[in-house]
């Protein structure tokens, strides 16, 4: 799947889509024992340009958690049937140092920590040029429409 097709699996559009490119797709799947906990890692790249153009900077550092969730949905749910259906269901141990600056390009790494049924937990980190600016866990529910239409 090329980058454009992969991004098309997200229900989000400007100015609510925070992931602009997938740099390294997830290597996800069942673990060696065929268990329910998967391991995967991915890197996505985010540009703050769109939000910066609209408001000077992202309004809230919590949007970085949304960016992690979007990256997670892209990387673990990257097909039209599952990728379009999912939403941010929870945030855990999330810390952010600052909001992104205008024009800044951020890298998001996401690792699947576990899953149970339709709920997936991802550990994520957002990095700017000087290092980490946010990290934490997000829970994403797949397979149901969000009342708000997406992650």
């Amino acid at each position, binding site marked *: 799947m090329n980058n454009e097709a992969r991004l098309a699996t997200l229900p989000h559009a400007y100015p609510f889509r925070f992931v602009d490119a997938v740099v390294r797709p997830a290597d996800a799947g069942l673990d060696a024992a065929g268990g*329910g906990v998967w391991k995967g890692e991915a890197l996505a790249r985010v540009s703050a340009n769109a939000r910066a153009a609209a408001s000077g900077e992202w309004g809230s550092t919590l949007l970085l958690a949304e960016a992690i969730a979007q990256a997670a949905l892209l990387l673990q749910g990257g097909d039209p049937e599952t990728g379009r259906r999912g939403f941010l*269901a*929870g945030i855990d141990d999330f810390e952010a140092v600052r909001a992104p600056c205008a024009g800044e390009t951020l890298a998001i790494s996401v690792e699947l*920590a576990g899953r149970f049924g*339709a*709920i*997936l*937990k991802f550990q994520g980190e957002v990095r700017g040029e000087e290092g980490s600016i946010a990290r934490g866990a997000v*829970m994403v529910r797949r397979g149901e429409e969000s009342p708000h239409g997406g992650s």
Partner: protein
Amino acid sequence: MTRENLAPRVKDLIVRRLKLDIDPSTIQDEAPLFGEGLGLDSIDALELVLGLEQEFGIKVQDEEVGVKAFASVNALCDFIEQKKIA
């Protein structure tokens, strides 16, 4: 590990992993964990799955099995004991 030792450890895991503001000893062995009991939800279930894996080395590989195992502290202890024997 005896059952007498296991139940308190399971209760401690539940309180700690789910960041519940209660004394672990107040959780009844037979009380349902979800719904009317502790009021846990599907996100909490995932956290318990991760806790079982990290702290007991037990994987919950099937949602249906997990739902039964998380019915109560006693059910969870039974599940852990069965997995340890297997």
